């Protein structure tokens, strides 16, 4: 089947690529979108990125939008033009589905983070079958065992790099470019496990 993501890998020069990163404060969403933006920059593209993180430290949702292409104007993505959704958490991925192009690529981390509203509203529950709900409308969706892979890389905080590694399979940037940026972007003592996590994510299926 011809998915949007296959098309982008071959035609990144003719189309602005729109990526949406969604997660919860503390998951490293903004570091991931920064690394991706830098990779696009080094590959010679124009890049813009817009974050909404005012309340992230208080357990709120974090959204980061990245757009790259020959020339990018708006830092925010038009309605239903998201090509890639990188969901760091299932509920936050579900929350973004209405913003996606209908054949968008979704990479979602198999993790649930409890929102406090569930404590006080017995009616609204955390969706049990989150990934099936995603799969129902979006065929090109992958569930990643982010925590497990991050733990085997030696640090459960490297989920963001696992997801980025997975994403790198669908973008036209060289492995050494990615790894060079990771080295510059994370604390020196954590470089090894972050790169390990990136590679595990890239090879995962």
């Amino acid at each position: 089947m011809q998915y949007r993501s296959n098309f982008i890998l071959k035609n990144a020069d003719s189309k602005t690529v729109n990526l949406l990163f969604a997660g919860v404060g503390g998951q490293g969403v903004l570091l991931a979108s920064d690394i991706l933006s830098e990779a696009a920059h080094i590959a010679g593209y124009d890049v813009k990125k817009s974050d909404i993180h005012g309340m992230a430290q208080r357990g709120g949702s974090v959204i980061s939008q990245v757009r790259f292409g020959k020339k990018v104007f708006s830092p925010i993505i038009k309605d239903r033009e998201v090509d890639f959704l990188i969901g760091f958490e299932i509920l936050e991925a579900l929350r973004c589905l209405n913003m996606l192009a209908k054949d968008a690529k979704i990479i979602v981390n198999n993790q649930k983070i409890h929102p406090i509203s569930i404590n006080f509203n017995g009616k609204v529950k955390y969706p049990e079958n989150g990934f099936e709900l995603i799969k129902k409308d979006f065929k090109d969706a992958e569930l990643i065992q982010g925590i497990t892979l991050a733990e085997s890389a030696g640090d459960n905080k490297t989920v963001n790099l696992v997801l980025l590694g997975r994403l790198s399979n669908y973008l036209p940037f060289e492995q050494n470019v990615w790894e060079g940026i990771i080295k510059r972007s994370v604390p020196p003592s954590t470089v090894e496990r972050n790169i390990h996590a990136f590679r595990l994510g890239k090879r995962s299926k």
Partner: protein
Amino acid sequence: MKEFLSGNEAIAKGAYDAGVGYAAGYPGTPSTEILENIAKRYIDIYAEWSPNEKVALEAASGASMAGARALASMKHVGLNLAADPLMTLSYTGVNGGLVIISADDPGIHSSQNEQDNRHYARFAKIPLLEPSDSQEAYDFTRLAFEISERFDTPVILRTTTRISHSKTLVSIKKAATCLYGRQERALNKTAIPNNIEKFVMIPSYARERHRIIEKRLKRLQNFSDRFTYNRYENNPPSPPFSKGGMGELKNKKGKIGIITSGIAYQYVKEVCRDMPILKLSMTYPLPVNLIKKFAKGFKKVYVVEELDPFLENEIKALGINVIGKEKLPSFGELNPDIIEGALFGKRKRIRKNELMLPVRTPIMCAGCPYLGIFYTLKKLGLFVAGDIGCYTLAALSPYNAIDSTLCMGAGICQAFGMEKVLKEEERKKIVAVIGDSTFLHSGITGLMDIVYNKGITTVIILDNSTTAMTGRQDHPSSGFTLKGEETKEINIAEICRVIGVERVRHINPFNLSEIENVISEEINQKLPSVIISKSPCVLLKHKAKVHRQPSLTVDLSACNGCMACLKIGCPALERIEKDNLSFVTINTMLCNGCRLCVDLCSIGAISS
């Protein structure tokens, strides 16, 4: 090589490259990172967190008076406080360049309103620059200093959240060619000024300065017409002041032209990049001739701007018929879809997310020293006059404990005002709650009002040793400066005593019965009281270790699902369902072991 910078990082870099010698501000989303970047990366600039924005601008104006280039950075509502010096700084003008960064928050991502601060430029009759990406944020910061010195005026550089917090590529080399001259480090040529007609604003001198302002405004308007960043795009292709360019425009009257500025420019380009556009960068005073010539070329001219019809009203006052807010909203953020709908009627039906999903609202942290206070205030059923900070989150579920929030420092005064008009028994049901940074920002004067005018208000100061909501910035009682140097810690309790508050009490925010007892005692006093809860923010790593304990667990065989512990509003407590029964578990990744929930569990199911 270009750099990938946020608008705030670009402003910091622009300030450095402009030779700024003095930078001051007070933290406020979305402006905070400007000074943080200056302090971290450009260490030879003197930079400080001031107690508030008025102080920041006044101190910056002093540095300017002594000849240094100076910058004051704040969020939109901060400029309300700094408006007093601003209005008269327009009269005195500057010596070294003086630039005020106003970071507005359309969409109210993290503010109490979404006022459009472009009005301040017109109000104060000073130039206004509106960048539309990080490149312009960098370029315009440098230009702002040149304009400031060339026209002897403070300049406002106005960003919005989407400029401040978006990252775009910035070419430093291109902008290094300064348009109008000097850029050497300003600190080297400071001196004591001697010019009382300019710097002493008494009536006789101020009247003369007002004449100068009006002349300056005319010169600035001419400058705006020639400012290269106010430009035509797409039609006509030739530069605006070449003879051929305007002729071509007259002969060929186009259908639609668009006038736009700031982030709205990027959205317009996104939806119709080939349309004729007048891109405005200096939006006060407006380039009147440029606008008139542009408007003549089109049957219809749209003005696309976020928030107020600032450009639209000015342009209409020139007698030019433009379409703006009748098509576009005056509230919230714009985006490419809204503009596409307004200009071309291509309104996409907004696709609703049909899934019933639980919301993820911002909440206080596990182990936050505020949790027990708000639990108690709610339990006592008091009216709580709140203020601006993390504790404002207590207005919402699950805390539901704040009854008013207006602006920085208002809570104490509002509580006092209520008390003066309420019946005696009702006066005991009001407390004011304020954080340490906010108290030092503008709470002290309210407390003086209470003491001076014989009030009995109870004020609770939540001292977590930091400006937590904006990301933990230091302040006058935190013991450190913006640059991380150790300094005197101003003692809040002593301030209260010196003002004349006789009843200053301290409470341990992790002891629920103590909190309840002390608050109950103080609201029944016939004297003003201050209750101080001093315990560091749990996110303050170097200080919070003191009270970080091993995490707790719930014995599920003992838990009877009464949910009493959830009332504390701690995010580490998670309600789970098992065999159709509800229980509570504790997320050990989040729990700080503060033990507030232990006190609420009547059957002792929670332990370490």
